[in-house]
């Protein structure tokens, strides 16, 4: 599939780890995901609000969550956000068959609208950019203006497509 990326690169973004205070005065720590954190990450997805699912992910039941996580963690890059011992956010890049990466980002409903998604996104792009990733794309539902605004702010541009989803891309 041919996809158009912006000509100009964006970044570099800050690399994780970083600690910051979110909009509700909670201390949030963002770091590169380690395999030992699988249980904490899976627990976040078990607690995930079904209303926040998009385009079929994350899966609803626990067995399917583990299987899905195994697939997406197998390639690319991952950063996670913690509030205390609880994982509350995850941003992932998964390799496609074209040498680029697809991005997806998840924040637990209790921790949304607090600036965590924006930090997660920049941390992931900072990490992956330093590791040599150049082309990143994503799809987002057209009605999801909050997410679209976040991606635009970071530097994603809109690609073509007349489908249900909007496609966006960035060059690092």
């Amino acid at each position, binding site marked *: 599939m041919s996809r158009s990326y912006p000509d100009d690169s964006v970044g570099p973004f800050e690399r994780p780890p970083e600690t910051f205070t979110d909009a509700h005065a909670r201390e949030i720590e963002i770091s590169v995901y380690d395999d030992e954190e699988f249980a904490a990450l899976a627990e976040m997805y078990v607690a995930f609000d079904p209303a926040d699912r*998009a*385009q079929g*992910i994350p899966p609803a039941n626990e067995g399917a969550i583990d299987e899905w996580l195994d697939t997406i963690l197998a390639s690319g890059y991952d950063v996670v956000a913690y509030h205390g011992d609880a994982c509350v956010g995850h941003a992932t890049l998964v390799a*496609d068959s074209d040498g680029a990466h697809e991005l997806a980002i998840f924040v637990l409903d209790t921790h949304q609208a607090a600036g965590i998604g924006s930090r997660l996104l920049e941390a992931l792009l900072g990490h992956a950019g330093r590791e040599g990733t150049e082309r990143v794309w994503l*799809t987002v539902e057209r009605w999801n203006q909050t997410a679209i605004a976040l991606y635009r702010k970071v530097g994603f541009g809109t690609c073509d497509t007349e489908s249900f989803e909007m496609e966006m891309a960035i060059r690092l």
Partner: protein
Amino acid sequence: MNVLVGIDGTERAFAAFERVVARVKETGDDLTAAIVASEIERPDTIERRVREVIDGEGIEAAVRRIEGHAGGGLVDLADDGEFDRLVVDGGERSPTGKIRLDPTTEFVLLNAETSVTLAR
């Protein structure tokens, strides 16, 4: 029930078709396979494979060809009053696992008066 299933040349479509055939064997529903012209596979090749599945399972099914716009042709055929249900494959998954519907599926979902089933 009178079921119409659309099949382009993708493996997803054949997998969906085989599931429909297995179900029809149990329910005794009437089945029509609609061969959709696509860039993926020649209609003759698709039809041969469709007939192999039908014959292999020992069921009765009609085979039709859709010429021109795939979604438009499927909707017209389904809506002419003859069919109770239109089945198409449920889409592929992106690297992160997001479901991606192809343009024909989107067209059918938005435009068909007939109930549409996405086979997964």
